[in-house]
């Protein structure tokens, strides 16, 4: 039952092949049996899940069931869940139980989905390996000695290990796509503002975007149809009607123009990863697409610009964690300053602290123009590269990440090396464009992700393009050894 996709579960539930309680119990059992190997969940809400499943079964019996009624999912622990601990994988929020739901969480409740719990992640979504979690690293189901990618490593690993058919996740610089690539799953980061950020704990507000990780493009479309939409509680959420993202999946992609940026195939790209991506592009040609070589000349600047803008925004976003109104407070503060210094010094992990310091530096007097302002200017140049490219092509493709999953601990000592793992994903966040990663084969025995970058609000088209590839290939159906 755990091998079923969401689309199959929806059919199975409606045809009474099994009940929501049955599949929910099965997956909870599987989590209990297997997740100690992966550590993909921080909190499992078994009891609540069974209750939700029973309620869903009742609605299914009545025949008025909403879209995802009875379908088990899990939320990245960055989304606030009313009455369920929401830690953001930080000691700072180890005891934090929000009395409110994120809009995304509420959307899934309205859609009748059953939440199995909260998935592990890098602390405050800062990382590319899921090693910075206060609750320990997540392991890749394809090789438990390797990282699952980050920051949505728990969400990706849980899907790859078939503990849950799909999860919510968030992507600030690649945090959906890169772990999807590392774990052979399908991840979608929508256009900035397509999914509400209300209740999604902020890392870098102008870059953060929620999206799904699933096993197929079709499932990602089903998930996005629930997640996306206007929200008056988020000023940056786009006030545009949402749509049924599954509607166009089966359209032909004949005549599709795929832009292939030369900058994404240069130095630093693992040759096997490059080869798999080239093969995928050939497959697209067979499907009737045309490859167009393009240039995104400012690509190299995306990582440096990002590592100014994201930490700058984070340095302010994380100021609210001060030990006063919620979360961690140090023991016996001597005075107010001590309360702040130690609560934050002890409550945040190393990577989080490093980014706060970098952000404070970039914004501080005398450095603002050289760093923050400069980075925002470069950001416009990067966006303009894409705007120009989309004059010529319908979608851009390349590798999601330069390498397959690396070993746990391998890049811990070198933050910059870790940052460069996001070299192909970061630019889309800076530009606010939608991006996807779909499995396209294996390198060194590990999954490789093909990245699709679409034009603004072109998610339906991207899902169609991804779905057509998955109709013609079976990379997305490969099962991680530890999941078998």
């Amino acid at each position, binding site marked *: 039952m755990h091998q079923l996709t969401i689309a199959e579960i929806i059919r199975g539930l409606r045809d009474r092949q099994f009940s929501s309680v049955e599949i929910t119990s099965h997956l909870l059992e599987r989590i209990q049996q297997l997740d100690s190997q992966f550590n993909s969940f921080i909190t499992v809400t078994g009891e609540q899940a069974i209750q939700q499943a029973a309620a869903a079964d009742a609605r299914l019996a009545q025949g008025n069931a909403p879209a995802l009624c009875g379908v088990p999912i899990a939320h990245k622990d960055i989304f606030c869940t009313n009455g369920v601990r929401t830690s953001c994988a930080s000691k700072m929020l180890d005891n934090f139980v929000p009395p409110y739901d994120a809009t995304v969480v509420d959307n899934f409740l309205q859609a009748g989905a059953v939440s199995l719990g909260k998935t592990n992640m890098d602390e405050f979504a800062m990382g590319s390996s899921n090693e910075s979690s206060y609750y320990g690293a997540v392991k890749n189901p394809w090789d438990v000695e390797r990282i699952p990618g980050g920051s949505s490593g728990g969400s990706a690993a849980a899907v790859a290990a078939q503990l849950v058919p799909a999860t919510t996740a968030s992507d600030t610089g690649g945090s959906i796509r890169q772990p999807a690539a590392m774990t052979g799953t399908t991840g979608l980061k929508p256009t900035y503002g397509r999914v509400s950020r209300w209740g999604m704990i902020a890392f870098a507000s102008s870059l953060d975007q929620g999206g799904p990780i699933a096993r197929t493009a079709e499932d990602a479309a089903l998930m996005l149809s629930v997640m996306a939409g206007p929200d008056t509680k988020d000023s940056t959420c786009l006030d545009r009607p949402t749509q049924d993202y599954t509607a166009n999946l089966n359209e032909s992609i004949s005549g599709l123009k795929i832009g292939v940026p030369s900058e994404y195939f240069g130095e630093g790209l693992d040759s096997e990863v490059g080869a798999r991506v080239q093969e995928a592009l050939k497959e697209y040609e067979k499907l009737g697409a045309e490859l167009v070589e393009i240039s995104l000349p400012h690509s190299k600047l995306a990582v440096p610009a990002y590592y100014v803008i994201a930490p700058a925004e984070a340095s*302010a976003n994380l100021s*609210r964690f001060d030990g006063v109104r919620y979360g961690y407070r140090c023991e016996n503060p001597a005075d107010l300053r001590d309360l702040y210094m130690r609560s934050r010094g002890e409550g945040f992990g190393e990577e989080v602290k490093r980014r706060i310091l970098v952000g404070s530096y970039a914004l501080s007097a005398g450095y603002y123009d050289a760093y923050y302002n400069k980075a925002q200017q470069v950001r416009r140049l990067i966006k303009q590269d894409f705007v120009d490219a989309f004059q010529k092509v319908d979608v851009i493709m390349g590798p999601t990440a330069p390498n397959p999953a690396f070993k746990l601990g391998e890049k811990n000592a070198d933050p910059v090396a870790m940052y460069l793992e996001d070299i192909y994903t970061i630019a889309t966040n800076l530009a606010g464009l939608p991006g996807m990663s779909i499995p396209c084969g294996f390198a060194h025995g590990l999954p490789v992700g093909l990245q699709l970058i679409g034009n603004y609000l072109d998610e339906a088209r991207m899902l169609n393009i991804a779905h057509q590839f998955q109709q013609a290939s079976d990379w997305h159906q490969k099962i991680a050894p530890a999941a078998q």
Partner: protein
Amino acid sequence: MEWEVVIGLEVHVQLATQSKIFSGASTAFGAEPNTQACAIDLAMPGTLPVPNEEAFRYAVMFGLAMNAEIGKRSVFERKNYFYPDLPKGYQTTQLEQPIVGAGQIEIHLEDGSSKTVRLHHAHLEEDAGKSLHEAVFDSGHGMSGIDLNRAGTPLIEIVSEPDMRSAAEAVAYLKKIHSIVTYLGISDGDMSQGSLRCDANVSVRLKGEEELGTRAEIKNLNSFRFIEKAIKVEAQRQIDLIEDGGKVVQETRLYDADKNETRSMRSKEVANDYRYFPCPDLLPVVLSDEYIEQIRAELPELPDAKCARFESEYGLSAYDADQLTQERATADYFEQVATKSGEPKLAANWVMGELAALLNREDKSIVDSPVPAEHLASLIARIKDNTISSKIAKQVFEAMANGEGDADTVIEAKGLKQVTDTGAIEKLVDDVLAANGAQVENYRSADPDKRPKMMGFFVGQIMKASKGQANPQMINEILQQKLNALL
């Protein structure tokens, strides 16, 4: 050496919106602690701000009233610092692109002169919460308590150019701001509740000097009286310091009203680097010309316009018109009395005289006046139609102030109606002349030139005998006749 004081003011005005600037929590004053602090105000994780349209409308109204440029595109920024009354660890405010740009207003000084003060800009921002100290707790743990009800209340911060040259000018400017915001109805202007607060940047320089001296910022002045005293004492401190060979340090100071001195707030000086940057949770606010023009069309009459109209329409002196228009409530009160009584000049005299004295004595504002405008108008009407004399009118006013009803009710109840019956007045005259034989004799024998003056004595006696109620003109006429008859 002759010194010149240079003052610029930063005035914070709480806007009278129902809800906060970025959340739907109430802004009502005086609620139990933290009962009006919602998840957004508390900076709960994942919460996001959505700005209040009314706060923008109010800010635009203010900008138009200040003859200022309106920021058609304004941007919120984050001002980063840690303080327990600031839940997010940053204040959402405006810096580079404020809602109100440069402008100017005219201030009126006590000596009748006027002066233009330039507005640098005004911006929208959120207020902070409040720290309460141990006094509120039973246990002696010595900690502070944080109440975040006020956190997120919309403010406009109004920043002047350093155009004021005396404490009196600063007060006049502040009064003008107070007058404008209350006329517009965008703030209750209640300084005792902190609805209008002021920081003063004060420096001194030798007269004739072009360059500005080093300034000190005096924080949180919350009454007109304190502002005047604080500026005076701070300017003197700086002058004494310089004359003693010292140097003014740029710093934040606090005014201690008990000691009438300012003192340094060194605790706040530690490395202030606010790291402003555009708030990524909020988008630029773009206002259309139509929106701004609509607000302009709906602006109420402002103090200067009202003042000019009072002069021309009611024939008031410039001074009276200015006095009466400083506060909208006073102007409204006056205008009711003037139109209902048909006697604007008398109305002005009474509002600025007896009424002002009464309110002052009872420490009441004009909106809570014990004498409603209709009552004062009825009193003036009775003076005008000779029902009572001005002297009796004061007596009636006191009775009205005690809640004894309108003028007619008081006059009736107390029998204060002016005596205009010829027979009754003749009797009064006869009685007084009979009782003062010696004075009558003196009058008869006096030089005719001196007689008019001597009449005053008899008038006074007759008025006294009538308890002030006899019509003075009739007394004069009848007395003259009777005295002439005795010659």
